[in-house]
């Protein structure tokens, strides 16, 4: 088994645990590179099937390419697709910096979606290497009724014995990609030939490394036009993955506040 095989096996294990131990589960599909890998891993886990709904909580501010991609692969991958909407920005906490406030719409959209569609477990494709508070996440991360993350008192999690016993009203975020890095995602995408949105590839010296909403995501300088070139770029880059995400740079605690409130 090589490195990617080990990562894949661990993710498959996580998917199967959640599917067996939790009641209703569903997957958040942001249409980005990570969540495509996540769908792929689910099909590995369930031998070609995705036996739960795949959900997109739509900020309606995504790039047009992302909507095209979505519609195409719902059909091709035979997905049971659900979609939710996000409330307008005016309803968000005004004390948050502007980009973070915009991102908070997604949290609220998810909360509303979960209120209408009760799930016991939600798969989310976050990784520890993206951001320092995500580095502290559990694979099975319990959330109260409001979706809040009690990061000061997380339950222990070891030996792949995940938390599967909860008081009523709890749901769990399951993170099958937590142990992957950005490099791993691209190497796996390449090996498995997983489709990705073109926005990740450079045009006119710019490409997106991470895809958020149109208004709060900036492309980075790059000439990487193919998967090989992206991988080569990552080997030497000194720029962090989320450098194009405005909300990460507004205030020291902006991301923590968002996540504590239930942001992915």
């Amino acid at each position: 088994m090589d490195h990617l095989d080990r990562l894949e096996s661990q993710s498959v294990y996580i998917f199967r645990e959640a599917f067996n131990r939790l009641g209703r589960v569903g997957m958040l599909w942001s249409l980005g590179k990570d969540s495509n890998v996540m769908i792929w891993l689910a099909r590995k886990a369930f031998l070609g099937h995705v036996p739960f709904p795949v959900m997109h909580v739509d900020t309606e501010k995504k790039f047009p390419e992302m909507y095209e991609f979505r519609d195409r692969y719902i059909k091709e991958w035979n997905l049971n697709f659900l979609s939710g909407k996000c409330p307008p920005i005016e309803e968000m906490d005004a004390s948050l910096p502007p980009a973070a406030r915009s991102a908070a719409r997604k949290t609220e959209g998810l909360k509303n979606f979960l209120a209408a569609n009760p799930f016991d477990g939600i798969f989310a494709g976050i990784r520890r290497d993206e951001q320092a508070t995500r580095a502290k996440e559990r694979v099975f991360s319990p959330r109260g009724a409001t979706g809040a993350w009690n990061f000061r008192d997380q339950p222990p999690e070891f030996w792949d014995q995940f938390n599967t016993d909860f008081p009523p009203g709890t749901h769990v975020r399951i993170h099958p990609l937590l142990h992957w890095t950005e490099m791993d995602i691209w190497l796996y995408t390449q090996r498995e030939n997983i489709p990705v949105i073109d926005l990740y590839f450079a045009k006119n010296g710019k490409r997106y490394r991470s895809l958020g909403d149109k208004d709060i995501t900036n492309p980075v300088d790059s000439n990487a036009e193919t998967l090989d070139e992206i991988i080569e770029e990552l080997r030497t880059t000194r720029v962090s993955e989320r450098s194009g995400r405005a909300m990460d740079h507004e205030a020291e605690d902006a991301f923590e506040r968002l996540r504590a409130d239930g942001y992915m």
Partner: protein
Amino acid sequence: MSNHRESLKTVFVGHVDHGKSTLVGRLFHDTDSLPDGRVEEIRKMCERRGMPFEYAFLMDALQAERDQGITIDTSQIWFKTAKRDYVIIDAPGHKEFLKNMITGAAAADAAILVIDANEGVQEQSRRHGYLLHLMGIGQVTVCVNKMDLVDYSQTRFEAIEEEFRAYLTSIGVTPNHVIPVSGREGDLITGPSKRMPWYLGPSITEALDGFRVPLPATDQPLRFPVQDVYKFDERRIIAGRIESGTIRVGDTLLFSPINKTAKVRTIEAWNVDQLPMKASAGQSVGITLDEQLFIERGHIASHENQPPVETDVFRAHVFWLGNDALVPGKTYKMKLANAEARVTVQSIDRVIDTGDLSHVQSDRVERNAVAEVTIRSRQMLALDEFRHNQKTGRFVLVDGFDIAGGGIISMEGYADQRSLITVRATNVTKVEAAIGPDERHKRNGHKGGVLWFTGLSGAGKSTIAVATERRLFDKGYQVYVLDGDNVRFGLNADLGFSPEDRAENIRRVGEVAALMAKAGFIVVTAFISPYRSDRDRARAAAGADFHEIHIDADVATCESRDPKGLYRKARAGEIKEFTGISAPYEAPDAAELTVDTSDLSIDDSVARVSAYVDRTFTQT
């Protein structure tokens, strides 16, 4: 290609404030592993707080952590040397967050244990060392940090090294290096230090590169715990992760604890050109079988010649994280590989002080404590001893909704019950008995039955058995005593004294006693029979004719009598696994009769048993 590089997970542990997070931050900085702007960002945060630059802020990302200057939760970060990739796990040192330390450390292949040169070895330095060992993390490097605070003193370093090496040695750990470092000043992070020319060993990165990457357990006996059974389409797929060994198409698999076998028909996979013919340790797979067995999540598949242990009782070395203490008698949910079972702690054998390694007797295991306990399950379990297979030899306990502890398994003093499960032959046709029990009852004037004496050595079983036999015989009962002497020489002459043979000895006695009871006799058996599972089997053989009689005297009383000098020898270590001293005695919890011989004379004891027999064996 980086996907062919090896990867190693290393955790930083040690007492609170000894500089773990600082060392991790420094390691990243000095190996030039941080993205542009990160150091500047941290510098600004520190300035805003009016404090000197803190490398620890790289890992301590939560506001609460930065405000208090303490790590609350464990985090993971990626890093590489020329040799290989690393996942570095930072763990908190504060006692309050031991659950988070365990969460971080349990995932590691190796550990760096950090000790403050100024403060020296502290409570959590030892506890963390102990827990690493318990969890089977054998590769440990010790860093004596903050050498700048002790003027890079060789004497100070050597004093700490000596003290801590002695501790680690006493728990069976040999650190591969002890390195003097300074996280703040950057000494011995990636190369030699001018300030410590007296130190000739490796730096931290060199020590990291010296760790071994554990090999997957491909060559060990096969353990394939069933995670789920899928029927998404026409295939019935047994899904799970191979924890050790190798599965090949065509192999016969034995599923425990149901003890059923079937052959592997296919190993399924998605998005491959050809289905694989074999799969090995570490792989998450799905297989189909040639027979539709009733297989459930939690069963463990193995090859027939190397099966896991089957038992409903075992010993465990546990660490406890629950807010409520671990107590005997309470029911917990145990998770072992993919199995779940209701278990109770039958006894807390000793609580271990991880500071001085002394043992205390206690009726509870408090939060953050370590103990040896005996655990009993209501159902038969398939498991391994931790020393044979880590993955199927460890478990967690769930108390209410919370994972509250973990433990590793030992079967010391307990038999594998697989070989003892009595499979009654099915191809034997029972001959209809010509004489019924009532006829025998009438002829003898009493029913047949088994008086099963159990109790510690020296409690008086044989003496009371023999005297009871005389008393009952004189009263006209058909009575006979079975004890070690009359079965060990003949019926059980082929058996030795291993746990399995002892259990088999008791099983045969149970079967013979049951036959004699059917023949109308009152059979008195006089065996220590310390295990509940063995006695339960004897009860199953005799059914309603079984009467368990606890010949009860505590260890102290028996030891003071010590008629054969056995206790003295056991205490001196000349007899191993002596019941009550170095092996468990599981007292009956619902004996038909208890005779407390520390209070009663032999005559009185015999009178009790005899009265019980008059009461229960003569009514029609």
